[in-house]
């Protein structure tokens, strides 16, 4: 891994010194903590670091005007971040000439990759990025319970939500200028941090990620109340894969799952 990090730092320094990018988004490690770190000088490249605990999804920064304004830029990208970049590209949020990835993962450093090359890297080294088995086990365990038990479980969890929207801020997929939860006239989702408003928020937040969530886990990691948000995301990803073969973030241009259709889609639940 150390060789990989060295190579990544060298590439970051090279890109900056050549002026190919103006900013590199990466991680630094301080003690047990992992922080995002932005560097704009080649000399700062030594500060960059990476390990498996770097859970924050740096792609989320790309929607910030202050970051976007400094394009072209490079992002230190774990496989999950790479997938987020491709999702953002599919949704016309980022353009090829704006962002490059310094692709790095458990299998080593993949080099400076343009968005067009990310798919191939992912497919070669990380073709089946699926939720971790432990998470899937928890999903299965919960799914096996009765509807009442599930309702009870989630009621308890959702009651904790303070509506701080840290989950939203951490998620690269949540880039709406005005989130649905902030809409009034009509107000679809109550903004009060209780009851049905919480339910609607959590469910809609998850559903808006259907076919888009790359499973990075940044939302859950960001939640100060410890809500098991990844249970919702994983269940939805699993359903989307099983029913429609949805594997977001492997193609540069992909049709959105919700918003396209096939005559062969399952209709057995419709009477």
């Amino acid at each position: 891994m150390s060789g990989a990090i060295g190579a990544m730092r060298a590439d970051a320094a090279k890109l900056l010194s050549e002026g190919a990018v103006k900013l590199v988004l990466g991680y630094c490690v301080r003690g047990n903590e992992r922080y995002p770190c932005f560097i704009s000088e080649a000399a700062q490249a030594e500060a960059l670091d990476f390990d498996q605990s770097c859970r924050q999804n740096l792609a989320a920064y790309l929607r910030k005007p202050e970051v976007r304004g400094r394009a072209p830029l490079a992002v230190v990208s774990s496989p999950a971040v790479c997938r987020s970049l491709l999702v953002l590209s599919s949704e016309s949020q980022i353009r090829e000439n704006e962002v490059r990835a310094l692709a790095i993962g458990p299998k080593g450093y993949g080099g400076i990759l343009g968005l067009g090359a990310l798919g191939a890297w992912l497919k070669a080294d990380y073709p089946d990025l699926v939720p971790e088995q432990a998470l899937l086990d928890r999903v299965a365990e919960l799914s096996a319970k009765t509807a009442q038990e599930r309702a009870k479980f989630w009621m308890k969890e959702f009651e904790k939500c303070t509506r701080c929207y840290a989950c939203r801020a951490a998620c690269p997929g949540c880039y709406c200028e005005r989130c649905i939860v902030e809409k009034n006239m009509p107000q679809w989702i109550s903004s009060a941090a209780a009851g049905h408003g919480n339910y609607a928020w959590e469910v809609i937040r998850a559903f808006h990620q259907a076919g888009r969530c790359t499973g990075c886990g940044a939302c859950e990691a960001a939640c100060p109340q410890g809500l098991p948000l990844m249970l919702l995301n994983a269940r939805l990803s699993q359903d989307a894969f099983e029913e429609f073969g949805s594997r977001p973030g492997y193609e540069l241009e992909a049709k959105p799952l919700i918003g396209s259709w096939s005559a062969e889609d399952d209709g057995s639940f419709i009477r």
Partner: protein
Amino acid sequence: MTFEPRITAFVCNWCTYAGADLTGTSRLSYAPNIRIVKLPCTGRIDPLFVLKAFEGGADAVLISGCHPGDCHYASGNYHARRRWSLFRKLLAFTGIDENRVFFSWVSAAEGQKFANLVNKVTEQVRAAGPFGERNLARRRL
């Protein structure tokens, strides 16, 4: 007093709404528990509508539109089908199961089917009981 379920139905204008009209012109009777909200197409139905209905007091939601291939707008029902196939599972996972959300294709010619559908759904919801004031998706009154 026995429990009378309240069922909110979102139907498309071209098939199911017309089918429900046919039920009327054929004088087929069905349970009076359903309230229809007409939309141009099932493709229009945002998942938010469903949550809002539960929040507002519905014990169940019925969504019905044109059969595959018959959509007035060519593909609105296909969009809807894909959307619901995932959303209903998410609802079930969070505790709102198949006794609360129903999907159907009812064409403009299927007056009898519409009557049977409403009766069956009403029975099933009646058996399942009230959605529950304690449920998180429901507004506390």
